[in-house]
């Protein structure tokens, strides 16, 4: 992953656009990483109640439900904040 290894020499407009694309890609990755970390912490707390030698079937299914619900909760919260002014 060497996104900075191809410097554009096709003029400053192209390189500005290139740079903005790179920034966007890196930001997207950072957002995703942070989200994953949060979801992991929340769902571990909810679903893995007593860490055994392996994840049980019910823990695994809890985790996948938890991830879906956390994504849904994110949508509900952002709609509550930004749509339909109270």
């Amino acid at each position: 992953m060497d996104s900075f290894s191809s410097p554009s020499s096709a003029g400053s407009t192209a390189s500005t656009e290139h740079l903005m694309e790179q920034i966007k890609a890196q930001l997207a990755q950072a957002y995703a990483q942070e989200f994953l970390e949060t979801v992991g912490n929340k769902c571990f707390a909810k679903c893995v109640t007593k860490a055994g030698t392996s994840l049980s079937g019910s823990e695994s299914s809890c985790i996948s439900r938890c991830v879906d619900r956390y994504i849904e909760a994110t949508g509900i919260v952002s709609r509550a904040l930004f749509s339909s002014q109270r």
Partner: protein
Amino acid sequence: MENSAEMQRFIEQEQQKAMVSEMVGKLTSVCWDKCITSTPGSKFSSGETTCLTNCAQRFLDMSVIIAKRFEMQ
């Protein structure tokens, strides 16, 4: 450097997005802890959905009150 204005605008936009994203992330975390008390099911109950919505909006109300409280001093 006629691109610096464009870049400036781009950075401001991304900063705005980052702020929004951070706020949504933080409120989701806070309200998840407050509202989702049982093991996550395959669907939110209507109580949970309402709680999440109310929680986010009340947090905003609270922020306003706190800001006002400091203005008064």
